[in-house]
């Protein structure tokens, strides 16, 4: 019970930390691809990470002074 809650909390924390660095949740993306685009290849986490890393600094000015 407490173990499950702690695991869920940890998952949230990791998800927040990654999102702060511009990397969205990989599992969510894979699930999205499987449901909506079964024809597309699922990228590995490393490929997904690199693509997001490039995308973060493409413009938009995502941070404050």
């Amino acid at each position, binding site marked *: 019970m407490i173990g499950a809650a702690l695991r869920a909390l940890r998952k*949230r924390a*990791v*998800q*927040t*930390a*990654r*999102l*702060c*660095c511009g*990397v*969205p*949740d990989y599992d*969510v*993306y894979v*699930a*999205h*691809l499987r449901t*909506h685009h079964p024809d597309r290849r699922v990228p590995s*986490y*490393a490929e*997904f*990470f*690199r693509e*997001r*890393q*490039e*995308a*973060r*600094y*493409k*413009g*938009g*000015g*995502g*941070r*404050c*002074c």
Partner: protein
Amino acid sequence: MQAVMPKPSPASKILWVAIAIVGAFCLGVVALRRGEPINAIWLVAASIAIFVIGYRFYGKFIEHSVLRLDATRAPPSVLRNDGLDYVPTDKWVVFGHHFAAIAGAGPLVGPVLAAQMGYLPGTLWILFGVVFAGAVQDFMILGLSLRRDGRSLGHMLREELGPLPGIVAMIGVLVLMMIVLAVLALVVVKALTHSPWGTFTVACTIPIALLMGVYLRWLRPGRILEVSIIGLVLLLASIALGKNVADSATLAPLFDFDAKALAWWLIGYGFCASVLPVWLLLAPRDYLSTFLKIGTIALLALAIFLAAPMLQMPAVTRFIDGTGPVFAGNLFPFLFITIACGAVSGWHSIIASGTTPKLLANESQARLVGYGGMLMEAFVAIMALIAAASLHPGVYFAMNAPGAIIGTTVQDAATTISQWGFVVTPDELIRTARDIGEGSILSRAGGAPTLAVGMAQLLHNVIPGASMMAFWYHYAILFEALFILTTVDAGTRVGRFMIQEIAGLIHTPLQETSSWAGNLLATAICVALWGYFLYQGAVDPLGGINTLWPLFGIANQMLAAIALMLATVVVVKLKRERYVLVPGVPALWLITCTLTAGYEKLVGPISFTAAANKYAQAMEQGQLLAPAKNAAEMRQIITNNYVDMALTGLFMALIVVMVLFCLRALLRAWRSSHPTAHEEPYVALGSVAS
């Protein structure tokens, strides 16, 4: 469809009345106690009470009556879910992301500078500014973007006001960004001038980041947390090692630079960093600075709670009359220009219409993220103010007043500052410098060093130890330099893309972001733009911050005024005229502050014009005024002041033009008999398959 406000239960009524009474009492102590120092905890308690009351009542009022957010309506994350940019996300995760994106150096620097007027004016502006202006702006822009597929501020301005106002606002954003980069880089220059220890540790972040980049790319791809921990350990080691470098007779001179040399290093660094691939330097440093920023803010909060310092700065000092050494100008309008981030910051409107609206899973969560996130940032600003106000005022003024006013020796500085009524001895100034492991603390304006000394003293109270003060001081300097340099890299890159886009209109091949020629050219232009102002700050007679911070404040508040004007126009376009004052009053206030400040910087005793004339007259009589050492440097200072005048004029013209466009749109919308805002049509959340 409009959600109905639930009726509060009797228990909740009692609770809120109790919070209001406690808050009012604490604020009363903060505002009215005179003659004896008060404890910072009063200020913390008053702030928390005001924030929760603002969040619960004013935030909710905006949510239900002004924006009329609707939990049954499908947000962009659901409608356009692509698993990457548009993803319905847990509200606390979005909150963390949003806060990390809006919190930066701004809320830490502005309140420290404003402490010269005492802690009370800054506190009141932060508390009431955030509840009635800053959080309103962030929340309303987020709400508008949520109803418009997560569109950006520029896009919404074009849609709601017309194409020309959209372009005018975007020019404003580009100029603002260049000023932001220059001022922030200047904060780093001021912190590292003749500080071998600080310069060494900040220089170490480059090889550490390169190592992290290689690790993330080739060894363990995508393991951000793991590599950040490795980076943090290396950073702490470099701080410890920095002491040995500073003590060494052979190594210390290698890292000992004056302001001009540091400015050139930063300009060169900014150029290199923004043409290198992002994975190598920018991204790893970004991760490190993001985590360090959140961690340090938490540490600062903990230190304030545990140390519970007394505020040694008086509530109000004599410098509210405009004669302050840190920045010139009266309380109105300059307090409201100096503290931008923390009370109201235009930059947030770009973030609130960027990633955040694409992540919110439900409109009902926008208040937590938009309004609540900004309240958190205001709390960071309050903590920075506490750190500065808990310093000995004599030390505070010695660190923040320019050398042209207090002199360059501890004896002169102590004499001048004691004459102002803040009695301090040369020994105290020397001892403080020795405690933090530096040669001198005089004239280190820019907020970062003051905050670092304040933090070091607070943390030293909690974790004592002989050499710990110096460690904490350099830790605080490193943490600020780290995320400022990240902003400089990322900002230069964004500026480069903007410039390439504009250049592409003239000569199409330049638009190609993968072309090396276009890339290098646009980067050079971008670096030259902010580099000019940075160098100007480094040679400025009053130390740079004194000159450039008001320009930055005017530009940032100008953008906030534009965002709030957009919100005002949309409220009328939605035919909710009775709520026009909610965004309208803060918009008017910011327009008044920026135009008044701009005017005083153009005409009168504290203007750029007066500074230029003073040097021009001295030139005619063949005199040299410090810090200029020859006629060329005199001419340089005169030109710099002319450029600042032109820029101030440009900002004022931008505001006036935007006000006219908004008035036109307001009149049309008022006369119209039906809503004319460009909202996307309602789609029920339940009708969309996930």
